[in-house]
Protein backbone atom coordinates (compact mmCIF):
# COMPACT_ATOMS: atom_id res chain seq x y z
CA UNK A 1 0.00 0.00 0.00
CA UNK A 2 1.29 3.44 -0.93
CA UNK A 3 1.28 6.16 1.73
CA UNK A 4 2.21 9.62 0.44
CA UNK A 5 4.70 12.08 1.93
CA UNK A 6 4.54 15.88 1.40
CA UNK A 7 5.85 17.19 -1.93
CA UNK A 8 9.43 18.35 -1.71
CA UNK A 9 10.33 15.78 0.95
CA UNK A 10 11.77 12.31 0.51
CA UNK A 11 12.89 9.15 2.21
CA UNK A 12 16.57 8.23 2.01
CA UNK A 13 17.43 4.53 1.79
CA UNK A 14 20.69 2.86 2.91
CA UNK A 15 22.67 3.03 -0.38
CA UNK A 16 22.14 6.77 -0.66
CA UNK A 17 22.56 7.33 3.07
CA UNK A 18 25.95 5.59 2.93
CA UNK A 19 27.13 7.95 0.18
CA UNK A 20 25.74 11.04 1.93
CA UNK A 21 27.46 9.89 5.12
CA UNK A 22 30.82 9.67 3.34
CA UNK A 23 30.37 13.28 2.26
CA UNK A 24 29.28 14.59 5.67
CA UNK A 25 32.04 12.64 7.44
CA UNK A 26 34.63 14.21 5.13
CA UNK A 27 33.20 17.69 5.74
CA UNK A 28 32.94 17.19 9.51
CA UNK A 29 36.56 16.06 9.68
CA UNK A 30 37.75 19.26 7.96
CA UNK A 31 35.45 21.53 9.98
CA UNK A 32 36.71 20.01 13.24
CA UNK A 33 40.35 20.20 12.09
CA UNK A 34 39.89 23.95 11.56
CA UNK A 35 38.48 24.28 15.07
CA UNK A 36 34.75 24.43 14.28
CA UNK A 37 32.70 22.65 16.95
CA UNK A 38 29.46 20.98 15.89
CA UNK A 39 26.18 22.32 17.29
CA UNK A 40 22.56 21.24 17.17
CA UNK A 41 19.70 23.70 17.50
CA UNK A 42 15.94 23.05 17.46
CA UNK A 43 14.28 22.70 14.07
CA UNK A 44 11.44 24.79 15.53
CA UNK A 45 11.97 28.37 16.70
CA UNK A 46 9.74 31.25 17.75
CA UNK A 47 8.76 33.27 14.69
CA UNK A 48 9.15 36.49 16.68
CA UNK A 49 12.78 35.60 17.47
CA UNK A 50 13.86 34.61 13.95
CA UNK A 51 12.03 37.67 12.55
CA UNK A 52 14.72 39.82 14.20
CA UNK A 53 17.03 38.73 11.37
CA UNK A 54 14.86 40.62 8.90
CA UNK A 55 14.29 43.71 11.01
CA UNK A 56 14.82 46.82 8.92
CA UNK A 57 16.01 45.01 5.79
CA UNK A 58 12.60 44.88 4.14
CA UNK A 59 13.67 41.60 2.58
CA UNK A 60 11.92 38.38 3.34
CA UNK A 61 15.03 36.25 3.74
CA UNK A 62 14.80 32.90 2.04
CA UNK A 63 11.14 33.30 1.20
CA UNK A 64 8.09 31.77 2.83
CA UNK A 65 8.67 29.74 5.96
CA UNK A 66 6.76 26.82 7.40
CA UNK A 67 4.65 27.98 10.32
CA UNK A 68 3.37 25.84 13.17
CA UNK A 69 0.69 27.13 15.53
CA UNK A 70 0.84 25.73 19.01
CA UNK A 71 -0.83 26.92 22.23
CA UNK A 72 -1.09 30.53 21.08
CA UNK A 73 2.50 30.74 19.85
CA UNK A 74 3.60 30.94 16.22
CA UNK A 75 6.58 28.69 15.63
CA UNK A 76 8.55 28.37 12.40
CA UNK A 77 10.72 25.64 10.96
CA UNK A 78 14.19 27.16 10.46
CA UNK A 79 14.95 28.11 6.85
CA UNK A 80 18.70 28.19 7.43
CA UNK A 81 21.15 27.71 10.32
CA UNK A 82 22.79 31.13 10.29
CA UNK A 83 19.95 32.89 12.11
CA UNK A 84 19.54 30.14 14.78
CA UNK A 85 23.31 30.21 15.41
CA UNK A 86 23.19 34.02 15.73
CA UNK A 87 20.38 33.58 18.26
CA UNK A 88 22.40 30.93 20.11
CA UNK A 89 25.57 33.06 20.22
CA UNK A 90 23.73 36.14 21.51
CA UNK A 91 22.08 34.03 24.22
CA UNK A 92 24.83 31.66 25.33
CA UNK A 93 28.03 33.60 24.56
CA UNK A 94 26.97 37.22 25.17
CA UNK A 95 30.31 38.48 26.47
CA UNK A 96 32.83 36.44 24.51
CA UNK A 97 35.09 38.68 22.44
CA UNK A 98 37.46 36.18 20.82
CA UNK A 99 36.29 34.42 17.63
CA UNK A 100 33.76 31.59 17.99
CA UNK A 101 33.73 28.74 15.49
CA UNK A 102 30.69 26.49 14.97
CA UNK A 103 29.71 23.93 12.36
CA UNK A 104 26.44 22.14 11.74
CA UNK A 105 24.72 19.42 9.72
CA UNK A 106 21.04 20.23 9.76
CA UNK A 107 17.82 19.96 7.83
CA UNK A 108 16.32 23.32 6.88
CA UNK A 109 12.83 24.00 5.59
CA UNK A 110 11.42 26.21 2.84
CA UNK A 111 7.90 27.14 1.93
CA UNK A 112 7.26 25.97 -1.60
CA UNK A 113 4.77 25.72 -4.40
CA UNK A 114 4.09 22.03 -4.80
CA UNK A 115 3.93 22.03 -8.61
CA UNK A 116 7.45 23.41 -8.82
CA UNK A 117 8.93 20.27 -7.26
CA UNK A 118 11.23 22.30 -5.05
CA UNK A 119 12.66 20.74 -1.92
CA UNK A 120 10.70 21.60 1.19
CA UNK A 121 13.40 20.05 3.35
CA UNK A 122 17.11 20.28 2.56
CA UNK A 123 20.22 19.06 4.32
CA UNK A 124 22.77 21.79 4.89
CA UNK A 125 26.36 21.48 6.09
CA UNK A 126 28.15 24.65 7.04
CA UNK A 127 30.18 26.80 9.38
CA UNK A 128 29.69 30.11 11.16
CA UNK A 129 32.72 32.17 12.21
CA UNK A 130 31.60 34.78 14.75
CA UNK A 131 33.79 37.68 15.86
CA UNK A 132 36.30 37.62 12.99
CA UNK A 133 36.07 40.74 10.81
CA UNK A 134 36.91 41.15 7.13
CA UNK A 135 39.15 40.48 5.40
CA UNK A 136 40.82 37.85 7.64
CA UNK A 137 37.62 36.10 8.70
CA UNK A 138 36.38 35.97 5.13
CA UNK A 139 39.66 34.43 3.94
CA UNK A 140 39.43 31.81 6.70
CA UNK A 141 35.87 30.86 5.71
CA UNK A 142 36.89 30.52 2.05
CA UNK A 143 39.85 28.36 3.07
CA UNK A 144 37.65 26.03 5.14
CA UNK A 145 35.18 25.92 2.24
CA UNK A 146 37.80 24.82 -0.30
CA UNK A 147 39.49 22.38 2.10
CA UNK A 148 36.16 20.72 2.86
CA UNK A 149 35.14 20.45 -0.80
CA UNK A 150 38.59 19.00 -1.59
CA UNK A 151 38.04 16.41 1.14
CA UNK A 152 34.82 15.19 -0.46
CA UNK A 153 36.72 14.51 -3.68
CA UNK A 154 35.09 17.26 -5.74
CA UNK A 155 37.71 18.41 -8.22
CA UNK A 156 36.35 20.94 -10.73
CA UNK A 157 34.52 23.39 -8.47
CA UNK A 158 35.01 27.15 -8.47
CA UNK A 159 34.05 29.81 -5.91
CA UNK A 160 32.28 32.96 -7.12
CA UNK A 161 33.28 35.87 -4.84
CA UNK A 162 31.36 39.14 -4.79
CA UNK A 163 30.35 41.90 -2.40
CA UNK A 164 26.78 42.44 -1.20
CA UNK A 165 27.38 46.16 -0.66
CA UNK A 166 29.11 46.81 -4.00
CA UNK A 167 26.11 47.95 -6.00
CA UNK A 168 24.68 49.97 -3.11
CA UNK A 169 28.03 51.74 -2.73
CA UNK A 170 28.14 52.51 -6.46
CA UNK A 171 24.58 53.86 -6.49
CA UNK A 172 25.45 56.05 -3.54
CA UNK A 173 28.57 57.41 -5.24
CA UNK A 174 26.67 58.05 -8.47
CA UNK A 175 23.95 59.93 -6.58
CA UNK A 176 21.15 57.72 -7.86
CA UNK A 177 17.70 58.70 -6.57
CA UNK A 178 17.15 56.66 -3.36
CA UNK A 179 13.59 55.91 -4.49
CA UNK A 180 14.92 54.12 -7.59
CA UNK A 181 17.48 52.00 -5.75
CA UNK A 182 15.34 49.11 -4.43
CA UNK A 183 13.94 48.49 -7.92
CA UNK A 184 17.43 48.46 -9.43
CA UNK A 185 18.71 46.04 -6.79
CA UNK A 186 15.71 43.79 -7.30
CA UNK A 187 16.32 43.74 -11.05
CA UNK A 188 19.97 42.92 -10.47
CA UNK A 189 18.94 40.14 -8.08
CA UNK A 190 16.53 38.90 -10.77
CA UNK A 191 19.56 38.69 -13.11
CA UNK A 192 17.71 40.60 -15.80
CA UNK A 193 20.24 42.77 -17.63
CA UNK A 194 17.71 43.80 -20.28
CA UNK A 195 15.44 45.38 -17.68
CA UNK A 196 18.42 46.74 -15.74
CA UNK A 197 19.49 48.71 -18.82
CA UNK A 198 15.93 49.99 -19.33
CA UNK A 199 15.60 51.05 -15.69
CA UNK A 200 19.01 52.75 -15.60
CA UNK A 201 18.18 54.70 -18.77
CA UNK A 202 14.72 55.60 -17.46
CA UNK A 203 16.03 57.34 -14.32
CA UNK A 204 17.94 59.87 -16.40
CA UNK A 205 21.42 58.61 -15.63
CA UNK A 206 24.22 59.69 -17.96
CA UNK A 207 25.10 57.15 -20.67
CA UNK A 208 28.55 56.95 -19.09
CA UNK A 209 27.11 55.90 -15.70
CA UNK A 210 24.70 53.41 -17.32
CA UNK A 211 27.61 51.80 -19.15
CA UNK A 212 29.68 51.74 -15.96
CA UNK A 213 26.97 50.03 -13.87
CA UNK A 214 25.98 47.56 -16.57
CA UNK A 215 29.60 46.74 -17.31
CA UNK A 216 30.48 46.16 -13.66
CA UNK A 217 27.39 44.04 -13.01
CA UNK A 218 28.53 41.65 -15.75
CA UNK A 219 32.22 41.69 -14.83
CA UNK A 220 33.49 38.31 -13.61
CA UNK A 221 36.72 36.34 -13.94
CA UNK A 222 40.25 36.32 -12.50
CA UNK A 223 41.94 39.04 -10.38
CA UNK A 224 42.14 41.21 -13.52
CA UNK A 225 38.41 42.04 -13.21
CA UNK A 226 39.28 44.00 -10.02
CA UNK A 227 41.57 46.29 -12.00
CA UNK A 228 39.07 49.07 -12.63
CA UNK A 229 39.85 52.72 -13.18
CA UNK A 230 40.09 54.84 -10.00
CA UNK A 231 36.78 56.20 -8.74
CA UNK A 232 33.57 54.73 -7.32
CA UNK A 233 34.15 51.31 -8.91
CA UNK A 234 37.67 51.03 -7.59
CA UNK A 235 36.53 51.89 -4.05
CA UNK A 236 33.70 49.39 -4.28
CA UNK A 237 35.99 46.47 -5.13
CA UNK A 238 38.58 47.34 -2.46
CA UNK A 239 37.10 44.77 -0.06
CA UNK A 240 37.26 41.99 -2.63
CA UNK A 241 40.86 42.87 -3.44
CA UNK A 242 41.84 42.66 0.25
CA UNK A 243 40.29 39.21 0.62
CA UNK A 244 41.93 38.02 -2.61
CA UNK A 245 45.36 39.09 -1.34
CA UNK A 246 45.00 36.94 1.80
CA UNK A 247 44.16 33.69 -0.01
CA UNK A 248 46.74 30.94 -0.43
CA UNK A 249 47.48 30.17 -4.09
CA UNK A 250 45.52 26.88 -4.12
CA UNK A 251 42.42 28.75 -2.81
CA UNK A 252 42.93 31.82 -5.00
CA UNK A 253 43.01 29.74 -8.17
CA UNK A 254 39.49 28.50 -7.38
CA UNK A 255 38.06 32.02 -7.10
CA UNK A 256 36.04 33.79 -9.77
CA UNK A 257 35.72 37.45 -8.80
CA UNK A 258 32.15 38.42 -9.68
CA UNK A 259 31.19 42.10 -9.37
CA UNK A 260 27.56 41.35 -10.25
CA UNK A 261 27.07 38.54 -7.73
CA UNK A 262 23.94 38.96 -5.62
CA UNK A 263 22.49 36.65 -3.01
CA UNK A 264 18.88 37.08 -2.10
CA UNK A 265 19.26 36.65 1.64
CA UNK A 266 18.87 40.05 3.25
CA UNK A 267 21.36 39.88 6.11
CA UNK A 268 24.56 39.80 4.04
CA UNK A 269 26.70 42.92 4.40
CA UNK A 270 30.08 42.42 2.69
CA UNK A 271 31.74 39.52 0.91
CA UNK A 272 29.35 36.94 -0.53
CA UNK A 273 30.21 33.71 -2.30
CA UNK A 274 28.73 30.79 -4.20
CA UNK A 275 30.06 27.35 -5.15
CA UNK A 276 29.80 26.20 -8.77
CA UNK A 277 30.68 22.90 -10.38
CA UNK A 278 30.46 22.11 -14.10
CA UNK A 279 28.60 18.89 -13.22
CA UNK A 280 25.59 20.82 -11.87
CA UNK A 281 23.50 23.66 -13.32
CA UNK A 282 22.80 25.29 -9.96
CA UNK A 283 25.12 26.49 -7.16
CA UNK A 284 26.09 23.81 -4.62
CA UNK A 285 26.16 26.27 -1.75
CA UNK A 286 27.15 29.73 -0.72
CA UNK A 287 27.64 32.18 2.08
CA UNK A 288 28.94 35.55 3.05
CA UNK A 289 29.54 38.16 5.72
CA UNK A 290 26.69 39.18 8.00
CA UNK A 291 28.30 41.82 10.19
CA UNK A 292 24.99 43.35 11.35
CA UNK A 293 22.96 40.21 12.09
CA UNK A 294 24.32 39.62 15.62
CA UNK A 295 23.54 43.25 16.43
CA UNK A 296 19.87 42.58 15.74
CA UNK A 297 20.06 39.99 18.52
CA UNK A 298 21.67 42.59 20.82
CA UNK A 299 25.17 41.20 20.59
CA UNK A 300 26.94 43.11 17.83
CA UNK A 301 29.87 41.20 16.29
CA UNK A 302 31.26 40.76 12.77
CA UNK A 303 30.60 37.30 11.33
CA UNK A 304 30.88 35.16 8.22
CA UNK A 305 29.72 31.68 7.23
CA UNK A 306 28.72 29.32 4.48
CA UNK A 307 26.31 26.46 3.89
CA UNK A 308 26.59 23.60 1.41
CA UNK A 309 23.55 21.77 0.08
CA UNK A 310 24.67 18.20 0.78
CA UNK A 311 22.29 16.61 -1.73
CA UNK A 312 23.41 18.92 -4.53
CA UNK A 313 27.03 18.24 -3.59
CA UNK A 314 26.25 14.53 -3.88
CA UNK A 315 24.76 15.02 -7.37
CA UNK A 316 27.81 17.04 -8.44
CA UNK A 317 30.18 14.35 -7.15
CA UNK A 318 28.21 11.68 -9.01
CA UNK A 319 28.28 13.88 -12.13
CA UNK A 320 32.03 14.37 -11.91
CA UNK A 321 32.45 10.65 -11.35
CA UNK A 322 30.53 9.86 -14.51
CA UNK A 323 32.43 12.47 -16.43
CA UNK A 324 35.96 12.20 -15.09
CA UNK A 325 36.21 8.99 -13.07
CA UNK A 326 36.61 10.74 -9.73
CA UNK A 327 35.73 8.46 -6.81
CA UNK A 328 32.98 9.64 -4.47
CA UNK A 329 34.14 9.97 -0.91
CA UNK A 330 37.18 11.15 1.02
CA UNK A 331 40.59 10.38 -0.41
Amino acid at each position, binding site marked *: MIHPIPSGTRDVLPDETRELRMITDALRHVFERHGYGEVYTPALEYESVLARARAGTGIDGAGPVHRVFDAGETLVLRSDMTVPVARLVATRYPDVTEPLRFCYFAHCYRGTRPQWSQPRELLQAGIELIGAPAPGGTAEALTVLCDSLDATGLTDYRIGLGDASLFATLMDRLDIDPAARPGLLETLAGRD*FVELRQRLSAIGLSEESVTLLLGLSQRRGGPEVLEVSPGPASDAVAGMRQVGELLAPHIAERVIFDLGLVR*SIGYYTGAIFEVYDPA*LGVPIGGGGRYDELLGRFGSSRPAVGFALDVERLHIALAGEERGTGVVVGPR
Partner: protein
Amino acid sequence: MSWWGHDDRERTIAMTDSTAATPGTPDGLDGLTIAVPRGALFGGTVELLTSLGLDTAELRSNDRRLLFSDIGVITMRPSDVPTYVEDGAADLGITGKDVLLERAGPASDQGAHERGRRQIYELLDLGYGRCTMVFATADRVNDRGEDPAAEALRRLGAMRVATKYPHIAARHLEETGRQGEIVEVKGSVELAPLTGLADAIVDLTATGTTLRENGLVVRESIVVCTARLIANPVAYKLKAAQIDQLLERMRAGITA
Protein backbone atom coordinates in the same frame (compact mmCIF):
# COMPACT_ATOMS: atom_id res chain seq x y z
CA MET B 1 4.23 12.89 -35.51
CA SER B 2 4.83 16.25 -33.92
CA TRP B 3 8.44 17.22 -33.62
CA TRP B 4 8.55 17.04 -29.85
CA GLY B 5 7.21 13.51 -29.91
CA HIS B 6 10.45 12.23 -31.37
CA ASP B 7 11.39 8.73 -30.20
CA ASP B 8 15.01 9.53 -29.50
CA ARG B 9 14.41 12.53 -27.32
CA GLU B 10 15.65 11.07 -24.05
CA ARG B 11 18.80 9.71 -25.54
CA THR B 12 19.55 12.91 -27.40
CA ILE B 13 19.76 14.98 -24.23
CA ALA B 14 22.22 12.61 -22.63
CA MET B 15 24.41 13.08 -25.68
CA THR B 16 24.48 16.83 -25.15
CA ASP B 17 27.92 17.21 -23.69
CA SER B 18 28.42 20.82 -22.69
CA THR B 19 32.15 20.44 -23.14
CA ALA B 20 31.77 19.13 -26.68
CA ALA B 21 33.89 21.39 -28.84
CA THR B 22 32.97 22.33 -32.35
CA PRO B 23 36.25 21.81 -34.14
CA GLY B 24 36.68 23.73 -37.32
CA THR B 25 34.11 26.37 -36.39
CA PRO B 26 36.02 28.84 -34.24
CA ASP B 27 33.42 31.46 -35.09
CA GLY B 28 30.49 29.19 -34.09
CA LEU B 29 29.32 28.88 -30.50
CA ASP B 30 32.83 28.13 -29.18
CA GLY B 31 31.72 24.90 -27.48
CA LEU B 32 28.60 26.38 -25.91
CA THR B 33 25.22 24.65 -26.17
CA ILE B 34 22.15 26.73 -27.03
CA ALA B 35 18.45 25.83 -26.67
CA VAL B 36 16.59 27.08 -29.75
CA PRO B 37 12.80 27.51 -29.94
CA ARG B 38 10.81 25.89 -32.72
CA GLY B 39 7.76 27.87 -33.78
CA ALA B 40 7.36 31.61 -34.36
CA LEU B 41 10.87 32.53 -33.16
CA PHE B 42 12.61 29.78 -35.15
CA GLY B 43 13.19 31.79 -38.34
CA GLY B 44 14.75 34.79 -36.60
CA THR B 45 16.86 32.51 -34.42
CA VAL B 46 18.23 30.52 -37.38
CA GLU B 47 19.06 33.81 -39.08
CA LEU B 48 20.95 34.97 -35.98
CA LEU B 49 22.85 31.68 -35.68
CA THR B 50 23.74 31.80 -39.37
CA SER B 51 25.10 35.32 -38.96
CA LEU B 52 27.32 33.97 -36.14
CA GLY B 53 28.91 31.58 -38.62
CA LEU B 54 27.03 28.36 -37.76
CA ASP B 55 26.26 25.92 -40.55
CA THR B 56 22.48 25.87 -40.20
CA ALA B 57 21.63 23.99 -43.42
CA GLU B 58 20.63 20.79 -41.57
CA LEU B 59 18.80 22.80 -38.87
CA ARG B 60 16.70 24.52 -41.54
CA SER B 61 15.97 21.43 -43.62
CA ASN B 62 15.29 18.78 -40.94
CA ASP B 63 12.34 19.74 -38.70
CA ARG B 64 12.15 16.35 -36.98
CA ARG B 65 15.69 16.20 -35.64
CA LEU B 66 16.02 17.77 -32.17
CA LEU B 67 19.71 17.71 -31.42
CA PHE B 68 22.40 19.23 -33.62
CA SER B 69 25.44 18.57 -31.44
CA ASP B 70 27.90 19.36 -34.22
CA ILE B 71 26.87 23.03 -34.03
CA GLY B 72 25.83 23.04 -30.34
CA VAL B 73 22.10 23.48 -30.98
CA ILE B 74 19.13 21.76 -29.28
CA THR B 75 15.63 22.54 -30.57
CA MET B 76 12.45 22.44 -28.48
CA ARG B 77 9.17 24.23 -27.89
CA PRO B 78 9.72 27.81 -26.63
CA SER B 79 8.23 27.20 -23.17
CA ASP B 80 10.73 24.37 -22.56
CA VAL B 81 13.77 26.57 -23.24
CA PRO B 82 14.01 28.02 -19.69
CA THR B 83 13.70 24.51 -18.23
CA TYR B 84 16.75 23.24 -20.13
CA VAL B 85 18.73 26.39 -19.35
CA GLU B 86 17.86 26.40 -15.64
CA ASP B 87 19.01 22.81 -15.38
CA GLY B 88 22.22 23.42 -17.29
CA ALA B 89 21.33 20.92 -20.03
CA ALA B 90 21.92 23.95 -22.27
CA ASP B 91 24.31 26.82 -21.43
CA LEU B 92 22.27 29.40 -23.32
CA GLY B 93 18.75 29.64 -24.71
CA ILE B 94 16.54 31.84 -26.82
CA THR B 95 12.87 32.29 -25.98
CA GLY B 96 10.13 34.92 -25.88
CA LYS B 97 9.78 37.42 -23.05
CA ASP B 98 6.20 36.11 -22.69
CA VAL B 99 7.57 32.69 -21.70
CA LEU B 100 9.92 34.27 -19.15
CA LEU B 101 7.20 36.48 -17.66
CA GLU B 102 4.83 33.55 -17.36
CA ARG B 103 7.48 31.51 -15.55
CA ALA B 104 8.10 34.32 -13.06
CA GLY B 105 4.80 33.36 -11.41
CA PRO B 106 2.00 35.53 -10.04
CA ALA B 107 2.97 38.81 -8.34
CA SER B 108 1.43 37.87 -5.01
CA ASP B 109 3.77 34.90 -4.76
CA GLN B 110 6.39 36.75 -2.78
CA GLY B 111 9.73 35.12 -2.48
CA ALA B 112 9.61 33.28 -5.79
CA HIS B 113 12.84 34.99 -6.82
CA GLU B 114 14.48 34.26 -3.51
CA ARG B 115 13.77 30.59 -3.71
CA GLY B 116 15.58 30.26 -6.95
CA ARG B 117 12.68 29.98 -9.31
CA ARG B 118 14.24 32.39 -11.71
CA GLN B 119 17.93 31.81 -11.36
CA ILE B 120 18.66 32.19 -15.08
CA TYR B 121 20.31 35.30 -16.49
CA GLU B 122 18.50 37.39 -19.08
CA LEU B 123 21.37 38.76 -21.14
CA LEU B 124 20.08 40.37 -24.30
CA ASP B 125 16.98 41.66 -26.07
CA LEU B 126 17.39 40.15 -29.53
CA GLY B 127 14.72 42.42 -31.00
CA TYR B 128 12.97 39.96 -33.29
CA GLY B 129 9.66 38.14 -32.70
CA ARG B 130 8.05 41.39 -31.56
CA CYS B 131 4.52 40.83 -30.16
CA THR B 132 2.26 42.53 -27.63
CA MET B 133 0.53 40.88 -24.69
CA VAL B 134 -2.97 42.36 -24.75
CA PHE B 135 -6.21 42.34 -22.79
CA ALA B 136 -9.10 42.06 -25.29
CA THR B 137 -12.86 41.68 -25.21
CA ALA B 138 -15.71 41.38 -27.71
CA ASP B 139 -16.13 44.53 -29.81
CA ARG B 140 -19.31 45.78 -28.19
CA VAL B 141 -20.36 48.01 -25.30
CA ASN B 142 -23.58 48.23 -23.30
CA ASP B 143 -25.68 51.39 -22.94
CA ARG B 144 -23.42 52.54 -20.09
CA GLY B 145 -20.43 52.35 -22.43
CA GLU B 146 -19.00 49.30 -20.65
CA ASP B 147 -17.26 46.47 -22.50
CA PRO B 148 -18.33 42.93 -21.48
CA ALA B 149 -15.48 42.57 -18.97
CA ALA B 150 -16.22 45.89 -17.24
CA GLU B 151 -19.91 45.01 -17.07
CA ALA B 152 -19.15 41.61 -15.53
CA LEU B 153 -16.84 43.22 -12.98
CA ARG B 154 -19.53 45.76 -11.95
CA ARG B 155 -22.51 43.43 -11.86
CA LEU B 156 -20.95 40.05 -10.97
CA GLY B 157 -17.95 41.26 -8.95
CA ALA B 158 -15.36 39.54 -11.12
CA MET B 159 -14.45 39.10 -14.77
CA ARG B 160 -13.66 35.75 -16.30
CA VAL B 161 -10.44 35.92 -18.32
CA ALA B 162 -9.38 33.12 -20.68
CA THR B 163 -5.67 32.82 -21.40
CA LYS B 164 -2.69 30.61 -22.12
CA TYR B 165 -0.76 32.84 -19.69
CA PRO B 166 -2.49 32.45 -16.30
CA HIS B 167 0.29 34.11 -14.29
CA ILE B 168 0.61 37.14 -16.58
CA ALA B 169 -3.18 37.54 -16.65
CA ALA B 170 -3.50 37.22 -12.86
CA ARG B 171 -0.68 39.72 -12.37
CA HIS B 172 -2.29 42.21 -14.77
CA LEU B 173 -5.65 42.02 -12.96
CA GLU B 174 -3.90 42.34 -9.60
CA GLU B 175 -1.86 45.35 -10.73
CA THR B 176 -4.94 47.10 -12.11
CA GLY B 177 -6.96 46.37 -8.97
CA ARG B 178 -9.64 44.22 -10.57
CA GLN B 179 -11.06 40.92 -9.41
CA GLY B 180 -11.00 38.13 -11.91
CA GLU B 181 -11.24 34.43 -12.46
CA ILE B 182 -8.60 32.94 -14.74
CA VAL B 183 -9.70 30.25 -17.17
CA GLU B 184 -6.64 28.48 -18.55
CA VAL B 185 -6.93 27.18 -22.11
CA LYS B 186 -4.23 25.62 -24.29
CA GLY B 187 -5.12 27.16 -27.65
CA SER B 188 -7.58 29.26 -29.72
CA VAL B 189 -8.14 31.68 -26.88
CA GLU B 190 -10.30 33.87 -29.15
CA LEU B 191 -13.02 31.25 -28.92
CA ALA B 192 -13.63 31.83 -25.21
CA PRO B 193 -15.42 35.23 -25.33
CA LEU B 194 -17.38 34.17 -28.46
CA THR B 195 -18.89 31.18 -26.70
CA GLY B 196 -19.46 32.76 -23.30
CA LEU B 197 -16.64 30.83 -21.60
CA ALA B 198 -15.03 34.13 -20.61
CA ASP B 199 -15.62 37.90 -20.66
CA ALA B 200 -12.12 38.75 -21.84
CA ILE B 201 -8.84 37.23 -22.95
CA VAL B 202 -5.17 37.88 -22.31
CA ASP B 203 -3.10 36.79 -25.26
CA LEU B 204 -0.06 37.52 -27.37
CA THR B 205 -0.68 39.22 -30.72
CA ALA B 206 1.65 40.33 -33.50
CA THR B 207 -0.70 42.11 -35.91
CA GLY B 208 -4.11 41.81 -34.24
CA THR B 209 -5.59 40.18 -37.35
CA THR B 210 -6.84 37.04 -35.60
CA LEU B 211 -8.44 39.15 -32.88
CA ARG B 212 -10.25 41.35 -35.42
CA GLU B 213 -11.41 38.39 -37.48
CA ASN B 214 -13.03 36.97 -34.35
CA GLY B 215 -14.79 40.21 -33.44
CA LEU B 216 -12.43 41.06 -30.56
CA VAL B 217 -10.86 44.41 -29.81
CA VAL B 218 -7.74 45.26 -27.81
CA ARG B 219 -8.70 47.18 -24.64
CA GLU B 220 -5.29 47.28 -22.94
CA SER B 221 -1.68 46.60 -23.96
CA ILE B 222 0.10 44.82 -21.14
CA VAL B 223 3.68 44.39 -22.32
CA VAL B 224 5.73 44.20 -25.52
CA CYS B 225 7.55 40.88 -25.90
CA THR B 226 10.63 40.09 -28.02
CA ALA B 227 13.10 37.23 -28.23
CA ARG B 228 15.59 37.15 -25.34
CA LEU B 229 18.94 35.45 -24.82
CA ILE B 230 19.11 33.65 -21.46
CA ALA B 231 21.96 31.84 -19.70
CA ASN B 232 22.40 29.19 -17.05
CA PRO B 233 23.83 30.80 -13.87
CA VAL B 234 26.67 28.30 -13.47
CA ALA B 235 27.62 28.36 -17.17
CA TYR B 236 27.51 32.17 -17.01
CA LYS B 237 30.30 32.04 -14.40
CA LEU B 238 32.32 29.04 -15.54
CA LYS B 239 32.20 29.85 -19.27
CA ALA B 240 32.34 33.63 -18.87
CA ALA B 241 34.87 34.28 -21.65
CA GLN B 242 33.01 32.27 -24.32
CA ILE B 243 29.63 33.73 -23.35
CA ASP B 244 30.87 37.34 -23.27
CA GLN B 245 32.58 36.92 -26.64
CA LEU B 246 29.39 35.49 -28.18
CA LEU B 247 27.33 38.26 -26.57
CA GLU B 248 29.60 40.85 -28.15
CA ARG B 249 29.13 39.32 -31.59
CA MET B 250 25.35 39.15 -31.12
CA ARG B 251 25.21 42.79 -30.02
CA ALA B 252 27.24 43.81 -33.07
CA GLY B 253 24.79 41.91 -35.27
CA ILE B 254 21.74 43.52 -33.67
CA THR B 255 22.95 47.08 -34.00
CA ALA B 256 24.34 46.50 -37.50
